[in-house]
């Protein structure tokens, strides 16, 4: 501050090394928060389990993110009541950062612990106030499952956009194709709801530029 010449960077720094280091650390905080469009560092209340995190990170594409301000997000499901029946349970995702961005790719990863005799017909509905009245649901994806392990269900990004609230609820619905029996038992029979094989969403978003998509008029 207060340097004589018009070019501040032309003055050799006269700070003591310690003071310069403290300044650099402060600058780094500002630079990272600004670069991430954050006003303050996030307070992580419920960090995902390390094992789930490591496994999920393997799903992210290595290397550069989608060109042009793209982001990749992994959101772990919270399951409020894993004792509900397998076939009407709800997966809840908190996606506030996704709200103001353009979602163009979404996959739901489920780790099926076991299968039942015959084929399991799995359907994923989006649950919520989309149609301005509670309890409406929209079918997003369905899959016939014959083997345990990880399964990725691609969800239509159009089906997930436009969510007023930052909370996305997906309902897992299932039945056995053998004799069309409804499967009973708690959800945790089918899915790992708390450990390192939690269901999670893998999303690819593009940061909305103001006036995106409209040519500027000069």
């Amino acid at each position: 501050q207060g340097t004589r010449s018009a070019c501040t960077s032309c003055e050799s720094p006269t700070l003591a090394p310690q003071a310069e280091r403290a300044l650099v650390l402060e600058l780094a905080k500002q630079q990272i928060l600004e670069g991430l469009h954050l006003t303050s560092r996030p307070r992580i209340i419920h960090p995902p389990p390390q094992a789930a995190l490591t496994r999920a990170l393997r799903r992210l594409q290595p290397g550069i993110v989608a060109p042009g301000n793209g982001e990749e997000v992994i959101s772990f499901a919270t399951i409020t009541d894993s004792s509900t029946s397998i076939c009407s349970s709800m997966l809840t995702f908190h996606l506030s950062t996704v709200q103001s961005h353009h979602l163009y790719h979404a996959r739901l990863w489920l780790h099926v612990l076991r299968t039942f005799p015959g084929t399991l017909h799995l359907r994923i509905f989006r649950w919520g106030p989309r149609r301005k009245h509670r309890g409406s649901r929209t079918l997003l994806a369905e899959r016939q499952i014959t083997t345990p392990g990880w399964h990725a269900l691609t969800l239509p990004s159009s089906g997930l956009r436009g969510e007023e609230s930052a909370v996305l609820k997906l309902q897992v619905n299932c039945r056995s194709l053998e004799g069309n029996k409804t499967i009973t038992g708690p959800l945790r029979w089918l899915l790992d709801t708390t450990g390192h094989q939690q269901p999670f969403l893998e999303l690819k978003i593009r940061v909305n530029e103001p006036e995106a998509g409209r040519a500027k008029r000069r």
Partner: protein
Amino acid sequence: TPTCEPETPLCCRRDHYVDFQELGWRDWILQPEGYQLNYCSGQCPPHLAGSPGIAASFHSAVFSLLKANNPWPEGTSCCVPTARRPLSLLYLDHNGNVVKTDVPDMVVEACGCS
């Protein structure tokens, strides 16, 4: 661009590595562990004006016009970044989601005199 030596007063790139541990941010920034926060500082005497780099080219065009019309221009040449690169970050947002993004122009790679 020369990295700064104590005895070199000329425009140079001053390198600093910031470890996120030092900021107490390792709990939410998963990767990388730290990054280079470089900045440019040092003197730009007139004979160095316009050397080297992208940003300088614009200034050197203006500067040569000034020189042509006035051998001793009033303005000073400044030590500025001439090349930067993005920084890939993997971090947890306040919902505990994992976000992977590229922040543009985060690392100064080269400096030059405008």
